[in-house]
């Protein structure tokens, strides 16, 4: 197997995730897209770990999974809060930072 096939797959997944983050209006769906991105990174970590025969890659993939879980927890909490305040989780309405 080539290293590159995994890396390219991860890149594709990453870009799809980016696309999702950019277009989705639903906060929930944005969070899902973020998960795709994180998973793409994980593939990279594990692939490089396999390339160098180093266990570090896996360890960090595990850490990433843990962090992702935390991130989903917080993210969902924010989405819930937003829903409670606005009765909507449409991100296009969230423009407090408008200049």
């Amino acid at each position, binding site marked *: 197997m080539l290293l*590159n*096939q995994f*890396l390219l797959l991860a890149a594709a*997944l990453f870009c799809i995730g980016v696309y999702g983050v950019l277009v989705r209006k639903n906060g929930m769906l944005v969070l899902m897209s973020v998960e795709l991105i994180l998973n793409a990174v994980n593939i990279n970590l594990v692939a490089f770990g396999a390339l160098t025969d180093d266990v570090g890659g896996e360890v960090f993939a*595990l850490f990433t999974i*843990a962090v992702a879980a935390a991130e989903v927890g*917080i993210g969902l909490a924010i989405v*819930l809060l937003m*829903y409670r305040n606005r009765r909507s989780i449409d991100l296009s309405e969230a423009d407090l930072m408008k200049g």
Partner: protein
Amino acid sequence: MNSVLAAVSQDADIVVAQNVFFGVIAVSMLYAAIRVVTTSNVVHAALWLVVALAGVAANFILLGSEFVAVTQVLVYIGAVVVLFLFGVMLTRASLGDDESVAQEKRSMAAVVGVLLFGVMAFALIDTWSDDRLVIDEPQQVTEVSDSIFSQYIIPFEAISVLLLAALIGAIVVARQD
């Protein structure tokens, strides 16, 4: 891209099965991922996400990291997706067609994505064109655990604290008062 294909075909006689398997997984994963970001139904999106994440887990197995694959299935498919589904229920967000996304926004995002992919692909092919992965045997779980609790003990502790903080944070943020 040609060089990749050429390399794959050279390699074909050795690990044909793995490569075929990889191809199937990759195609289904990418399709699932695309569905995640394009479907208009939130619940469908969550379910397509399961497929994509499972594909990732399969990739981990291909790479010999069984423990990570298992964790992936447990944490992601078992917990995160369920969490998502709960979130969908709690917010009662419209399950149907809510995604009236403007065309311009889509094309903008598509351009960004393709651009990003182009750059990354170029860089990857440029850098790692010939590197091969030789997976003799799966990684031992003991090795993983040993290094977590020796070499990576401090990051591990940090992650624990982070999880705790996230837990408290999530409660504080979502608390209804």
